């Protein structure tokens, strides 16, 4: 039996949970799953990458010196692994590579690109039924893709994500929502009947389309059923204000707001899988000393003034990220902390934005039960497959997976934590 320790760890995070989350209040399947320690996964993509020279440490191994960009993470050195020489085999196409960051589907820039399932959704399919939300997709671009390559829209607004997670409607609204869910299921039933009726008149080429439709309708029905089961479980109450109104150009403020929401979502076990896509837009970030658009700066053409401004943006991004890691570490859970049970993949789909290259990606893996503290340096010319890291992540999360996309094994040098 798992101890009820939510109050303690939430206090550690500076948040007070007013609701004792009793197991009796959880739907049956979630109750069964709650006995094992939750394994969580967060992916973060920074689509304009980082200036490589400032990001990667010089030497491999445990004795590497922190690069200038990694300095803010000095106190957390033992909680992350830095990887160089990784990339997705066959993934090119400049900015379009962001579509393949979590899927590793080749040639995202080609005219007839078809995407495949993303790592977060692969995990959510297996453990998503244990929480109110199977997964969260946040940010400016979506990292999440369904099995048949449809993008899952990202929630741009931290405030909206917060309200979905934690704000409960009035009793009347809840009753209306319940009716909607029930009616939704009967709609799916009817539509299924409608699709079956046309099954006879479709040719071979349309058969696949119709099968997709059947699957989508059946799964929607299952999701509505799950939502119905959760309507009677009140949403967790957190002692945190909803995120403030933010300007799109407030790049760092936006990051921090997303990170806060993610931390709250994980600590209340509202979800265990999150994907956050950072901004690649041309707006001028509201950071002192930065006067030009972020995207434009990334095409610095080695212009020192532009590189100086770009550095300000990138340092601020990394500072916000390490603060997020620190906050997770400060959130106690059982005899460990949130960071210990959350694998965080942080990186970029571009190696060098100024050259639009998709090799030598900056990749950092934090948290989870890994033996961290190392710089795993792979060949910068013949890169090691990044999907191998994905397989390691899956296995460490306790999921059965021998391969993912173009993987050739697990990530060499990434070992489980001792004990």
């Amino acid at each position: 039996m798992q101890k009820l320790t939510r109050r303690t760890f939430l206090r550690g995070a500076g948040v007070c949970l007013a609701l004792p989350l009793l197991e009796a209040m959880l739907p049956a399947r979630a109750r069964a799953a709650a006995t094992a320690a939750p394994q969580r996964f967060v992916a973060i993509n920074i689509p304009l990458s980082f200036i490589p020279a400032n990001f990667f440490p010089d030497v491999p191994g445990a004795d590497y010196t922190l690069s200038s960009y990694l300095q803010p993470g000095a106190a957390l050195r033992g909680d992350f692994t830095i990887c160089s020489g990784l990339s997705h085999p066959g993934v090119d196409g400049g900015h379009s590579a962001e579509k393949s960051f979590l899927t590793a589907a080749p040639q995202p820039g080609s005219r007839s690109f078809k995407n495949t399932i993303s790592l977060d959704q692969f995990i959510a399919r297996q453990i998503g039924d244990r929480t109110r939300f199977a997964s969260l997709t946040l940010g400016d671009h979506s990292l999440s893709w369904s099995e048949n390559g449809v993008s899952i829209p990202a929630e741009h607004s931290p405030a909206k994500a917060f309200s979905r997670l934690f704000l409960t409607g009035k009793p009347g609204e809840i009753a209306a929502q319940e009716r909607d869910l029930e009616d939704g299921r009967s709609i799916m039933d009817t539509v299924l009947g409608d699709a079956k009726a046309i099954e006879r008149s479709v040719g071979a080429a349309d058969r696949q389309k119709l099968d997709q439709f059947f699957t989508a309708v059946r799964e929607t029905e299952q999701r509505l059923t799950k939502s119905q089961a959760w309507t009677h479980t009140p949403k967790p109450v957190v002692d945190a204000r909803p995120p403030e109104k933010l300007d799109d150009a407030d790049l760092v403020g936006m990051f921090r707001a997303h990170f806060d929401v993610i931390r709250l979502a994980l600590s209340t076990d509202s979800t265990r899988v999150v994907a956050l896509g950072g901004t690649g837009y041309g707006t001028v970030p509201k950071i002192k000393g930065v006067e030009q658009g972020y995207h434009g700066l990334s095409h610095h053409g080695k212009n020192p003034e532009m590189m100086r401004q770009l550095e300000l943006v990138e340092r601020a991004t990394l500072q916000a990220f390490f603060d997020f890691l620190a906050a997770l570490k400060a959130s106690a859970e059982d005899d460990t902390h949130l960071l210990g049970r959350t694998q965080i993949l942080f990186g970029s789909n571009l190696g060098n934005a100024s050259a639009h290259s998709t090799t030598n990606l900056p990749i950092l893996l934090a948290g989870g039960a890994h033996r961290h503290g190392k710089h795993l340096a792979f060949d910068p010319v013949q890169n090691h497959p990044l999907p191998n890291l994905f397989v390691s992540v899956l296995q460490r999360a306790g999921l059965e997976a021998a391969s993912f996309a173009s993987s050739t094994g697990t990530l060499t040098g990434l070992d489980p934590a001792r004990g």
Partner: protein
Amino acid sequence: MALLLFPDIRCALVACAALLPPGLTAADFQKDAGAFFEKHCYDCHESGTTKGGLNLEKADTAIGGPEQADMWTHIFDRIAHDEMPPPKKPRPDKLAAAGFLAELKPRLLAADRARRSVVQRRLNREEYENTLHDLLGIDIELKGLLPEDQQAGGFDNNGAALALSTEQMQRYLETARMAVDAAIVTGERSATETWKCDSLGEVQRYIDSGQFGYVDGRIVLYTTSDDTYSKISTRSKRTPVRGRYRFSFQAAAENTTGLGFFTVNASNFAGVAATSKNLGYYEVGPEPKTFDIEAVLDPKSAIQFFAQGLPGYVKNTPGMKHPGVGFGPVEVTGPIIDQWPPESHARLLGKTDLAIGTLNDAHEILRRFLPRAFRRPVADSETDRFLGLIRSRLDVGRSFEESLRTGLVAVLCSPNFLYLREESRPDAQRITDTELASRLSYFLWSSMPDDELLGAKLSDPKILHAQTERLLRDAKAERFITNFTGQWLRLRQIADTTPDRKLYKDFDELLQMSMVREGESFFRQLLVEDRPITDILDSDWAMLNQRLAEHYGIPGVTGLAMRRVVLPAGSVRGGVLTQAGVLKVTANGTSTSPVLRGVWVLENILGHATPPPPPGTPAIEPDIRGATTIREQLDKHRSSESCAVCHKLIDPPGFALESFDPTGAFREKYLRWNVSNAEKGWGSVGPGASVDATGHLATGEPFSGIREFKKLLLARRDDFAHCLAGKLMTYGIGRELGFSDRDAIDAIVTRADSTGGGLRTLIHAIVASDTFATR
């Protein structure tokens, strides 16, 4: 792409095909192909050395499956275009090559045809929103709530690519509810009010400090900001409910004899999720003018004013004489209600009173609604299914209104609504008139057919022509212009990069907006006047407004409206290649790349798809500090023969376009960053190396710059016509074209050419073709 380019090979091919002994077997072809490869190809393309990523040992002469068809098409084209074997290798004699191609062609045709059928196509989000707007008579935004659509063949309306996921189905359920809710009204009619909003109180202190001016009751802005928030607004009293409002105000340009420009945005100020919707771009002279702007707004919304085309900063001195735009107090009237209940309500429900409706009423409503929603006649059994759902909801105690809504939402989640359904009839490849009506309306309106089109006998060529004309003349044809140019000319990507303000000081929002309008209005002009499609390659006219004319250095154009302007003799403009929008989306904001622009010209003008660089190719990193230009870097690239195969095709168009910077302005010199203090990162922008826009085509013809390059393009008119017809057909029927479509596209181009070669004529030829009406 078209064989027309290579008359000698084509003639040889025709001659050979005629000589070909009948009944050549598969075994013969396998033997002949093997011998041809052995002699000319295997040295570079077998499992040991797969140059260009091609391993001919994997080519199966049975050509089974799409990958094989693609591979053989690639082989066919390289030989037919005389690109392979490369010039330095021993060449097959023309008759041998033509003989091989003639043997390959019928097999490739059959293999390719087998994979090309129009598949049941899901509405993309653009089409989904338009269809619900047209079906229900509503105007709420829906497409932003749906996942991004997948593309294939350069367009996002491709049936094979448009997949459906669970996430998407859930969203359809939500958006269908929103749409039905928007169509039906239950509350009381809101009273129409009129009130006045004056921002003077809020901005008085800025007027006192000199940041804003105040002239004859108008608050004057002297700067253009790229913020989404303006202090001059109707925020003092926001809209009470959703509806149509009229905003009436005075504006005038100050301290100038010319025009002042401004935009009006609507926002609901809902925190982080605040909407900001541009209601339009306006111009005003020194004489005060009254504006009446009508728009549909959300509850608690207001409009805000932004001056455009002014500097980002001016020195703050009281009594200054900087040019500016002044805005007077705003009189707001609304919600303006023409009819109650609204048209959407009456259209859907007829005379049914929701409070006392019965199952019989629901039956009537469904009988009217279903054929329009499904775009075809509907069987009773289909109506009964949805009626059954409504009955089951009534049975569990839902109100009539709730039950009816549920039934209508189900209709909008049905595959019959969500897909352009074309029934499979083993005996006929041609689709029915009803199915053709949908194809035609989704081509030209990006939405459902209206009653007249659904009832038209489109198999009659005269009627088809007349209906096509009617659709093109309708305002909804604007959607075709926007969606087609948005993807073909990539105008949808216009805001993806912000040009570096220090390097490109002239760039502003007004220019960016004008770029999109230029591309669209140029295409519209060709369409309306049925101008020859060669105008797209080069023309002696352009569609310009004041902002673009200034950008291009063409005098005598005032105001924001796009109009036809005859270009001065020797102008570098004319055609689409030198339109600023195209030049911007093919650059990256800071620098230009001849490779990216070259690939764009090859793919979108000449119809020549280029493979991506093989893995491991080092990327070129722009460096604007030193003396090396991008061209010098590229020359290194091209010195290797395997790179040169593609780059001798890609680079020349890109070189010709090097005369244009990332904002589309003409340049003779690159900009260069001059370092003054390396430690502190200080420096300044100055002129750098001269632009070299000369080059020669892969076929040898030299050009001295963009003007001569366009002349060379005109000589390739047939390639372009084939390419454009192919793009239009791909967009029109929502499937990628292949080898087996080439003859049909050639026939369409020939037919269009024989009747004038205009864009409108070409569209008629496409619509009238068998391909357009075949599954």
